[in-house]
């Protein structure tokens, strides 16, 4: 069984994800005026159409290509030794510390702690009518699922197929799909929490909600 408290402590010990931005191809690197410890913006806008902070420019064959931050966070390292030199593809240029938000932490923990039931193919998914009714009235956590239970309707091009749940018995703790939107094959549909673990998980969720200090 997963030790959730330990997982939380681990995440707490390093409350960020580090991302290293590497050279996409060979070229001469020029760093933008950024400094270690300073904040950078990630892509923004409704469609992520506004690019993040400019980190560096890499030029090859007189074609300067800007490299932008992919996540918001703080600049950890700038590999300044490459300034003005010709680098290979994959050379690390800048590393960014992206501090996790509450939701991201919860997401990480839940995905590890819960049993995930995954979509077998790309389709739209719906709960069967009786489950759906229950979910709508009193929330998904009121539904207990057993192995072999008919739980979903898988709908693709008007072909609707019943889908049976496979896995341990438990409550539907998290729902990862939305009506009318396609789910790719292999993506989780629901997260199942075995009844004996419910208490621990709820405790962790509470701890995250109260204790987690967002750095941004």
């Amino acid at each position, binding site marked *: 069984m997963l030790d959730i408290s330990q997982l939380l402590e681990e995440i707490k010990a390093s409350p960020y994800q580090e991302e290293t931005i590497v050279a996409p*191809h060979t070229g001469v690197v020029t760093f933008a005026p950024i400094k270690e410890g300073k904040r950078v913006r990630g892509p923004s806008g409704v469609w992520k*159409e506004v690019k993040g902070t400019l980190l560096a420019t890499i030029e*090859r*064959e*007189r*074609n300067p290509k800007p490299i932008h931050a992919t996540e918001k966070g703080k600049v950890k390292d700038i590999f300044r030794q490459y300034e003005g030199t010709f680098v290979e593809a994959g050379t690390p240029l800048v590393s960014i510390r992206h501090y996790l938000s509450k939701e991201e932490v919860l997401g990480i923990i839940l995905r590890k702690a819960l049993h995930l039931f995954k979509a077998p193919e790309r389709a739209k998914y719906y709960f069967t009518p009786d489950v759906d009714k229950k979910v709508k009235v009193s929330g998904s956590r009121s539904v207990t699922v057993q192995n072999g239970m008919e739980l979903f309707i898988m709908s693709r091009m008007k072909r609707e197929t019943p889908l049976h749940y496979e896995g341990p018995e438990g409550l539907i703790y998290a729902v990862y799909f939305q009506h009318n939107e396609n789910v790719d094959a292999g993506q989780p549909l629901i997260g199942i929490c075995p009844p004996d673990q419910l208490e621990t998980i709820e405790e962790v969720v509470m701890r995250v909600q109260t204790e987690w200090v967002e750095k941004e």
Partner: protein
Amino acid sequence: MDFDKKLHQLNDRLNYIRDVFTGKQEENIRLLESKLNELMLREKHLSASEQQAAAATVDDLFDFVERKLEEDLTPMDRVRIVRHSQRVCLRDVLENVYDNYTEIGGKDENSIDPSMLIARAYITRRSGKKVYHQPVMVIGQEKGHGEEFRNGGSVKPWGNAKALHYMKVAETENIPIHTYVFTPGSYPVEDAPGAAQQIARNLYEMAGLRVPVVAVFSEGGSGGAEAIGLADTRLMLSHGYYSVISPEGAAAIEGRLKEGQRATPELIEKCARQLRITAADNRRMGYIDHVIDEPPLGARPYHYDFFRSLRQEVIRATDEVVLGVKGFAPFRAMALRRRHGKKGVTPDFDNIYVRWNLSSNARDRLVMKRHRKFRRLSRQACLDRRAVHRRIWEWGYDLGWDVYSYFKYDLWRKHQQRIVYAVEEVDAEARVLMNRLLSPWRKLSGSLPGSGKPAEDKEKELTMLSQWDQEDQRNGEWRYVSPRAKEDRTITCPNADSHGCLDLWAPDLFGEFAGVCNYCGHHFPMESKWFVHNIFDNGSVFEFNSELEAANPLGFEGLDVKLDQAKQKTGQKSGCVTFEARLDNIKIVVAMLTAPFRGGSVGAAEGEKFIRAAERAKKKRFPFLAYVHGTAGIRIQEGTNGVIQMPRCTMAVRRYIEEGGLYLVVYDTNSYAGPLASFLGCSPYQFAIRSANIGFAGRGVIKETTGMDIPPDYHNAFKALSRGHIQGIWDRREARQNLRQALLTMGGRNLYYR
């Protein structure tokens, strides 16, 4: 109670003056304020008659100050007057100008588009002892007095579609149409029908509407105004404005503002002045036929005298249009010709009866007259530096073609066609007969040995796979190669992030690949010369009307310099290049809007060249291609001289199509706004080169007017295709082949002109 009402009204008038002159005329406003306050304080101590007298004094003071302020109204003040919620709106006009009306398909916000109001109304006239009810279709934008759901008179495409529908109804019923233009501009939704398409459709249909149309302009904002403003007679309220763009929009362009920045009031004032948007300016330029005087500081709903004069004017305008195409009415026509302002009694048009429905011949004359009227407009707004002898020579050349095409197509072709059709019919009949008669013989001869075997190469031809036609791809060897191909550098495709395209070497990309990314098919913008040299037959391009030159008709500050720069940079005299060319020996007339010349914006010179090209195509019976290398819209610095090109060119295109022409439009790079919402958008056959952007308003304008952000690919060709705006998407490398195919299939195999 009456007195309270009076006070309330005076207060409204004061607020109105305050709003119109924000930050100006403070002394006058303070004076009015103090007098009104004084009146309010004294009110309780006065008797009823004294109250009335005091109120009348203040009322007179208001009148006096209003008249005084009227004298130094700036164009921007007029814009504020027109936008004010106290200004008369279409509902007021319907109530006070017409004798009775029924609103069609609308009940406040419950309407397909509450900003477009349609009403069947009638005007009652008396002739002798007889009373006539004359029905009219009233169509116009309704701003309401600040009603939010009206969207300030910004009409969505379906509102314009509704207007068009009822214009058609009026045409069926043979009753005149009165349109009232009260719009700051059209609402820029790209949908089906998109804003641009619907306006284009409206213009195209209005150009051929077979009933009298009278338009009254109060607030005429560009495309939105044109959607219902194409009329036989255009009247304008004296405090209205008619413009290509709002002064704020012009200021944003002139000041090169970024998103979120605001123009200074001074710059806005200056732009408003330079754009020549007022009624008097438009009357002088000829885009408005007559100005209707308003009371000082603009008409408000309680100005009943104004409504009376408006009624007289619309009646007279309709009468004039009708009598202008009708046969016999010498005295009534004379009565109508008496202009306002002349001494003597102007006739009361309520008492003159003119029947408003027209005979079929008169309707033909009406449409012809409308076309002629618009053809004449804006002639003075472009430069023509041809020498006299060249003009005479070209006039003679045109005349020669007129005569030639009349004999060849109108006289000879008609009879020739009749003979050909008859021969075809007889031939087909004879074949069927011969088949029946000869079938026994064929059966007999077919069964003999050694007969009926197809030749071997025939068999091969029919069964082998066809060969890839290298001619159209030219194996990467193009006749014109972009100068960018000479640079030794690589270029990143904009889709590299999403499609993983590798960097492209410029000589490959612009030389061999014709500006098309090898990995994802993204089309980089290419020079217009690429299209001209690689699409048409070698050496077949012959330019005409190149002397027509873009000018600065309004004397807009700085435009002369910009135009000179553009002329120098491109070597063209305007943003429109017209030429004749051959494609696989199919002769064709092309009008090309080129993006490097001031963004491919359309002004008077471009419009005139476009019209002449369409006329040339009509005369010579050639297919007509509008190749839009890129256009940013109407050239705002030319003001209404630019806007008027929308109806003018649309009419030219319509004349051409109705004469049997084949009109094709091809969009490359970016095409937006006015031209799209008129003479380009009305073509039944529109194609885009892949990666072209096509739309009504750009991102900035949409954000500014609606507050909405639009997705990055909102305007791309595929979106335009799925909205039904264009009919196909072409690869640049196959453009020649596709164009040939289009000419052959849409125009017919041998006859590319109906």
